[in-house]
């Protein structure tokens, strides 16, 4: 039987991680269908149909799908799942919220946050904040899988022309009402997909000092990250948090400034290709994962770093 991928989008565009999820899903079975649930999302359905790995698109539209409420999404996916062996989506807040609701309705034990497809029923996933990797085999007839997007490459996004079928919406779940979403708009690259991430921790000492992080990020066209300590202290908003309970990032370059490197933070960034740590505590655990460590007071080192970057004049685009 085929694989059903749940596309993540905002009714205007596909979310970039949908492409990574398509890659992962196609490794379970190449007969891959994608479902898009939303409101006035025809343009996105078309984009989805252009992904060469997608063999069929199922489009479900209704006003109550406008805001991606899991209680509305789950019944329609559960119904469609009759014809599929796997239901797959990304393990970000969208998929984490939605997939267990589908899995429980299908009486399936979900496999969360996989980083590798070993076979159609066997997967690799990190446990204990990435301090161990478990190889697990799902014995359920239907499998519900969420994938860690940064562990899979994005698929080709053009050249395909899959048929688009419409499916009936399910009834609205009346006990949950969407009120509002406060998205922080930024011209910077998205944290999850940025080539360079510059992160600050408790060592920044204040939200105002985060402008040092911003300056470095400007020079390198980087996304801005933060440790949980920095978010808890109110230096920066929650959408910047990197770690076990925040975002997992795998950039080419991760610069950790004033971050001690708690297990929970390392879980979110230690797969980065090159890690730089700037911290005045030479014993800080962040140095154990850093390719290049600089033991220094960040308030002296970071302005110098910005100056050196200015000299290089290599603003990356």
């Amino acid at each position: 039987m085929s694989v059903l991928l749940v596309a993540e989008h905002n009714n205007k565009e596909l979310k970039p991680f949908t492409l990574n999820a398509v890659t992962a899903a196609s490794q379970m079975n190449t007969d891959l269908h994608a479902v898009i649930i939303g409101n006035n999302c025809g343009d996105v359905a078309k984009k989805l149909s252009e992904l060469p790995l997608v063999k069929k698109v199922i489009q479900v539209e209704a006003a109550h799908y406008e805001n991606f409420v899991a209680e509305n999404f789950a019944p329609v996916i559960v119904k469609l799942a009759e014809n599929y062996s796997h239901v797959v989506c990304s393990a970000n807040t969208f998929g984490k919220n939605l997939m267990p609701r589908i899995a429980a309705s299908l009486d399936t034990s979900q496999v969360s946050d996989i980083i590798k497809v070993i076979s159609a029923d066997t997967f690799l996933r990190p446990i204990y904040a990435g301090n161990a990797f478990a190889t697990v085999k799902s014995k359920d007839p239907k499998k519900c899988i969420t994938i860690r997007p940064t562990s899979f490459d994005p698929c080709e996004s053009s050249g395909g022309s899959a048929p688009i079928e419409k499916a009936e919406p399910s009834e609205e779940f009346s006990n949950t009402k969407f009120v509002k979403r406060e998205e922080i708009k930024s011209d910077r690259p998205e944290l999850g997909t940025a080539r360079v991430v510059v992160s600050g921790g408790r060592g920044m000492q204040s939200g105002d000092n985060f402008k040092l992080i911003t300056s470095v990020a400007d020079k390198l066209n980087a996304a801005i990250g933060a440790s949980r300590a920095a978010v808890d202290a109110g230096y920066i908003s929650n959408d910047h948090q990197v770690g076990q309970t925040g975002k997992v990032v795998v950039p080419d370059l991760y610069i950790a400034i004033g971050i001690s490197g708690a297990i929970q933070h390392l879980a979110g960034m230690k797969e980065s290709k090159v890690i730089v740590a700037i911290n005045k505590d030479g014993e800080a655990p962040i140095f154990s994962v850093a390719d290049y460590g600089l033991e220094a007071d960040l308030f002296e080192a970071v302005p110098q770093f910005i100056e050196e970057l200015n000299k290089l004049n290599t603003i990356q685009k």
Partner: protein
Amino acid sequence: MKILVAVKRVIDYNVQVRVKEDNTGVVTENVKMSTNPPDDNAIEEAVKIKESGKATEVVAVSVGEEKAQETVRKALAVGADRGILIKADGILEPLAVSKLLQKIVEKEKPDLVFMGKQAIDDDCNQTGQMLSALLNWPQATFASKIEIKDKKLEVMREIDEGLETIEINIPAIVTCDLRLNEPRYASLPNIMKAKKKPIEQINASDLGVDTSPRIEQIKVEEPPKRKAGIKVKSVAELVQKLKNEAKVI
């Protein structure tokens, strides 16, 4: 209003977890155990709601081996009124736990069920959502702010893009983020008092739920190690290395 709070006993968040030599799991012998951190936030929130006069009873429930009683006892020490321990051995998947909790919900009839958004051992992030599916209740996951409005809750949720606010009718499930509140410490007198609070023990097998694993754990391994890095002496050296050696700037 009655609030049921689910708490899990896990390896303490400060412990460096080690994989067993035979690759069957991680070492749990002689390792410090404590309450799953966001479950502490769930208890704290329930107790705060009770203190504000909007709830009459807070019941803490845990599923696991006999020793999980300590986790329930800790919840009692910070303000839960009574406890329930569902005794079960071996690996319990979130689906099995949510089915057991469903039985407790049917018996206790709480208005709200709180728990942490994710357990830091298996990192599944499933149980709350599964329980709400089984009960067909609304779910407010990753909650960082809860406001009670009569028979409704307004919940602010942490999502990848920022923050989202939803309104849900009671009865409902809320899974708590670490930023929801600042969990209190148990005072010594309250720890003593908690020893007298009742904990009902129920065998999972008596609840008529099949808890056998659906997922076979084939092996557990150490993740690949990063090769050791170097310390640079100056910012200039750092920039030179990043440019010429790592070639990332």
